[in-house]
């Protein structure tokens, strides 16, 4: 996993609440057996005029000019600004892979759906929760300043604006540690392999039917 320490980038505003994972990456692309290559089809139904299929040359498809990521100012954005309950719906991690493959390193929203939130951390995408009012302020700032950039400092848990205004955010200690160090969960868990085995032995005595 790529480390996340400090990131500075252009903010793309997606002014909708309840953005679901079907919208982030439509199901036809879930047929892929790979983890990469989902960027061109991120928000596919909103980005293109006609429905796409896997295997197409997406650069040749007709785009919807009014969709934020199609506007030249946001082509290279790496921080997504969104509204409440972002990432609701299915557990598909493809949603996170698609955001990352497009180039996003962080999302800022007032709230997220649980599974999406969790999946993000596992892939080095930082989901930042700011207060509704703060998110509102950022939407205004983005609308007023072309190419608006923010700096995300994970170590100090701060989002910093170009005029040095700071917003602090909470992040779970363990998740922060993993992100800062780019650590793989599985390796960490396997350090406790003996404890897992002890648990299994105990449990098997009490409830053998769970191990049949």
């Amino acid at each position, binding site marked *: 996993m790529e480390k996340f320490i400090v990131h500075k980038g252009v903010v793309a505003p997606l002014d909708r609440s309840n953005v679901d994972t079907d919208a982030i990456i439509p199901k036809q692309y879930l047929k892929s057996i790979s983890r990469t290559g989902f960027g061109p089809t991120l928000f596919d139904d909103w980005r293109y005029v006609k429905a796409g299929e896997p295997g197409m040359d997406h650069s040749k498809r007709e785009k919807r000019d009014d969709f934020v990521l199609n506007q030249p100012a946001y082509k290279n954005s790496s921080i997504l600004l969104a509204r*409440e*309950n972002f990432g609701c719906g299915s557990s598909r991690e493809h949603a996170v892979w698609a955001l990352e493959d497009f180039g996003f390193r962080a999302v800022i929203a007032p709230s997220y759906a649980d599974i999406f939130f969790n999946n993000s951390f596992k892939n080095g995408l930082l989901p930042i929760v700011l207060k509704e009012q703060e998110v509102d302020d950022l939407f205004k700032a983005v609308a007023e300043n072309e190419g608006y950039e923010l700096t995300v400092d994970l170590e100090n848990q701060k989002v910093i604006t170009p005029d040095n205004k700071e917003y602090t955010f909470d992040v779970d*200690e363990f998740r922060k540690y993993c992100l800062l160090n780019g650590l793989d969960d599985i390796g960490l868990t396997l350090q406790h392999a003996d404890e897992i085995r002890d648990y299994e032995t105990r449990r098997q005595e009490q409830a053998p039917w769970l191990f049949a």
Partner: protein
Amino acid sequence: MAGKTLYDKLWDAHVVRVEDDGTALLYIDRHLVHEVTSPQAFEGLRLAGRDIWRKESIVAVPDHNVPTTTADRGNGTAGISDPIAKIQIETLNDNCDEFKLNEFHMDDIRQGIVHVIGPEQGATLPGMTVVCGDSHTSTHGAFGALAHGIGTSEVEHVMATNCLIQKKMKNMLISVDGKVGAGVTAKDIVLAIIGEIGTAGGTGYAIEFAGEAIQDLSMEGRMTVCNMAIEGGARAGMIAVDDTTIEYVKGRPYAPSDETWEKAVAAWQDLKSDSDAEFDAEIHIDAATIQPQVTWGTSPEMVLAIDANVPDPADESDPVKSKGIADALVYMGLEAGQPINEIKIDKAFIGSCTNSRIEDMREAAAIAKGNKVADNVKLAMVVPGSGLVKKQAEEEGLDQIFIDAGFEWREPGCSMCLAMNADRLEPQERCASTSNRNFEGRQGQAGRTHLLSPAMAAAAAIHGHFIDVRSIDVRTEGEA
């Protein structure tokens, strides 16, 4: 000290270790695997040179991508016409062979939607932790189990360690008090709950569903309710164990037998919240007020009783919500104030992990019997949840009732719930669907989904528009 909730008990029984900040290693008893969210996990294991921690804990099945027409189902995967879907299913087969896992192949009668076959096989048992790379894993909570969806990184983590890294969720109790009226089903109950709490109402919580109306439900009905906990934002929904649970589990292939059965049943008696348990949030709903429900918008919380009218964005004072309503009406092609029971449909879909079990088949067949699908309905399809559900329905003659009425009777799979295979809506087509998500594009790009119960979907197919099942004379009363 207050007693424990069911969730507390399930959690405590599975904690392997806890860090100071509350992050725990939670042991997973059952891992269900399907073709869409697993290939990258297997690939990850291979790249790291890791094996599966406990192979017997895994049951794998292809369901999302499998074709549902008999023509495409012959010949194993060779019959699948979509080459990419075919690769994904073959990849699952190869991975299960390589890692020596138990898989129900596409042509096995036990194949079906992962959330239907787990319980059907007794692979889901009370007191278990159950995970699957699919958000509707909450379904299995109906058995007094802690069950929730996980992402692909976690699928790989569970494969490699049989554990998940987790923090404890909060406890929410949703009690549906009293009895529901005639014609009101489990689906109506859960849609009404989501209408009440909203799609993010359960975020961060594990929900326990309780109350007389929930206890009165069969296991099929309980699974329908828990299935949609995730649509209310809660990763896990659960229901306490009682005789209905134990009766259902008894004799299933993966269930314990003989002495172990006795021991298990004794242990399962405790799988309920203590009477003095405290919940972080409690919601009470009067069952008698629940009417048959139909969603009108693009989120499951956009739901109303059948006799209501489509809302008007002008009546909503919150500007964000008002815009949400306006956007949904445009997408759905509806007018503010339109009566729901006048909305005409183009297609009907009875199936999905929410409503494809035998009881759902019976409920829909009772409405279809002796009737014909309306002329304006281009396609009405019934997709049983598993090969075994299909077989049982055929033994009961339900397939013939559907076929005579003009419904298509299909092979088991996810089908038009998410339209990964050929079953999908064309742009602007309107569908009465027993599935669980009415998101934009869910059943096909620009398709319009209305969620409702199997009986209501069958009634809409017969009448060509939404209609209150309670106003229909069911000819099969007393039968099937």
